[in-house]
């Protein structure tokens, strides 16, 4: 039977293509902080809009038609389906193009990718979320997941610091959590030029003085710039946190999101497949991680 008689196949390119972006509409642009807007998206296809499910901590590949693709962590909780909220920093080529777009404009989305936070494993434990600056973007998904499944978790504590109140992501929302009795929400700013900030002023690690933390029964989720990792990790280790219960969300420049293109490799792990959530134990064993 000559080869020419066998039917050539590229069906998967058309029907099961992991690189296929799906069209989504920008339904809202919230100018949260300068260069850190919150974009709310909804898939064109109703089936996708309602079926799309993610884990807190996962990310999507966002396409701006004509400009390219970039990995963006999902800031909305899977407990609130139907829409996707992406907190996007205006930083690279793709995000700059996104900032030129308007409500009702069309983007491409594929995903969700990455491992996400191990919410099954964390269930039943205390949860400590520690974020600095833009680190709140991926942690916000976990925060609302935990609050919407309040009975699945024991004590919940959020420690979040930004430079000034004006630079605090999700500020109104987080300030409204401070009075909640079923969690501890500790917010701090390095300095308060407004003079109206009613929460803490000081560096993020100072918040440990105001939190009740039992390292034996707590998982810590940490995200922020390198300096945040340095000081928060130091405190967590001093408190006696097991290294595999400190969870961190990493940033790399994924081009594919599915473990092929090689750009997000850290040591021998791919941030897009094995991460972006790694434990501190992983970090010790993988060079160049933080």
């Amino acid at each position, binding site marked *: 039977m*000559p*080869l020419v008689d066998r039917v050539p*196949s590229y069906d998967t*390119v058309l029907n099961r*293509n*992991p690189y296929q972006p799906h069209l989504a509409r920008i339904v809202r642009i919230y100018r949260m902080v300068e260069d850190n807007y919150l974009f709310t998206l909804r898939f064109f296809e109703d089936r996708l809009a309602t079926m799309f499910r993610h884990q807190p901590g996962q990310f999507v590949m966002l396409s701006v*038609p004509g400009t390219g693709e970039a990995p963006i962590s999902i800031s909305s909780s899977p407990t609130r389906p139907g829409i996707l909220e992406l907190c996007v920093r205006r930083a690279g080529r793709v995000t700059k193009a996104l900032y030129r777009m308007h409500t009702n404009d069309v983007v491409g989305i594929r995903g969700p990718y990455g491992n996400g936070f191990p919410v099954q494993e964390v269930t039943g434990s205390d949860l400590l979320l520690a974020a600095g600056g833009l680190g709140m973007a991926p942690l916000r998904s976990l925060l609302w997941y935990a609050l919407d499944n309040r009975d699945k978790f024991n004590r919940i504590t959020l420690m979040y610091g930004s430079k000034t109140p004006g630079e605090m992501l999700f500020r109104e929302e987080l300030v409204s959590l401070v009075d909640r009795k079923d969690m501890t929400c500790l917010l701090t700013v390095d300095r308060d030029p407004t003079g109206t900030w009613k929460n803490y002023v000081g560096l993020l690690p100072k918040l440990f003085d105001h939190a009740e933390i039992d390292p034996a029964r707590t998982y810590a989720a940490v995200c922020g710039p390198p300096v945040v990792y340095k000081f928060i990790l130091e405190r967590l280790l001093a408190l006696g946190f097991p290294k595999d219960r400190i969870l961190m969300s990493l940033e790399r*420049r994924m081009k*594919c999101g599915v473990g092929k*293109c090689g750009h997000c490799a850290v040591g021998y792990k791919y941030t897009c497949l094995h991460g972006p959530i790694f434990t501190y134990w992983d970090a010790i064993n993988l060079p160049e991680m933080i």
Partner: protein
Amino acid sequence: MKIRKLPKDKLDFFASVVQQFGEVHAPVEQDGKYVFKRLSRWSEARLDYPRTILPPKKYFFPPRETLFQFREGEGYLPCTEGLDKRAILFGVHACDIYALNILDQVFSGKYDDPYYQARRKNVAIIGIDCWPDEHCFCRSMRADFVDHGFDLFLGELGDHYLTFVGTALGDDMVLATGPLFQDVSPEDIDEYKRRSSSKRQGFKLDIEIRDLPEIFEMEYRSEIWDELGEKCLSCGSCSMICPTCYCYDVVDDTQLGSREGRRNRSWDSCLFATHALVAGGENFRKSRASRIKYRFYHKQRGFVAEYGRPSCVGCGRCISVCPVKIDITEVINKLRGVQNAPCR
């Protein structure tokens, strides 16, 4: 596995039969070097070549390809151009087939790369035996023999080829020749084994890979990396010609003033300065030393953790193209604290 033998003087006839199965590509001489290319006539093929400039990877994962076309209002339309093209690669060495088997693992898993997989289905492979030259170390990398990944493999047997039939398609090719292929005798098998052990003696380069991952961990902060960083030009040649390098970049290409364009991907290298750069300017591998270390580390250590073996197959291309003569076998032996030595 079905094993038959083919008289060498009937190779022309066999090639003419194979043509019915698709266009035949084979190594062809070009300016003193060799490249895989579509044959215009069979006599162009040079089956005794040492190594081609680019490995056969280019047929499955081309240097540049279009993944999608996008149009306003229509979104991203997958590009299937050329994916159904039938071809036969004639005369692929064991190391290069081994490398494709490694790429098969990378381009499958949780997410299949459908472009690579489609081409892999539509391009057949006829392997051929070879003899090591001064840059070959495939034996050290355990890639001097392959047991799968080909449709047919032609092993050296004096005036015959001992032919291993790897797939149903390969069997169809054998059967299409009529009575050309013959049964194998016990003497043929003895002869093949004799040749195989003398080939073993032919290697001039040797490295020990057994505990290499541990050596890489222990020598992670070695000065050797800084010395290499001083020497390396970050030109990326070694990645471009590597049969197992698969890093790629994705770029959207739009014509000026138009709302249509293409999403293209092209080969990339971890030696390029921007490889580990993230938006906002942080670069996780700023120095050349950190990049060349990463390249060796990922191939010889990282890949072992992920896939159970190094991703290097010892084809010797990177040794032969490096403009500043960085030699992976020398680097590994230096890390081990031993001199480059001929194979035992």
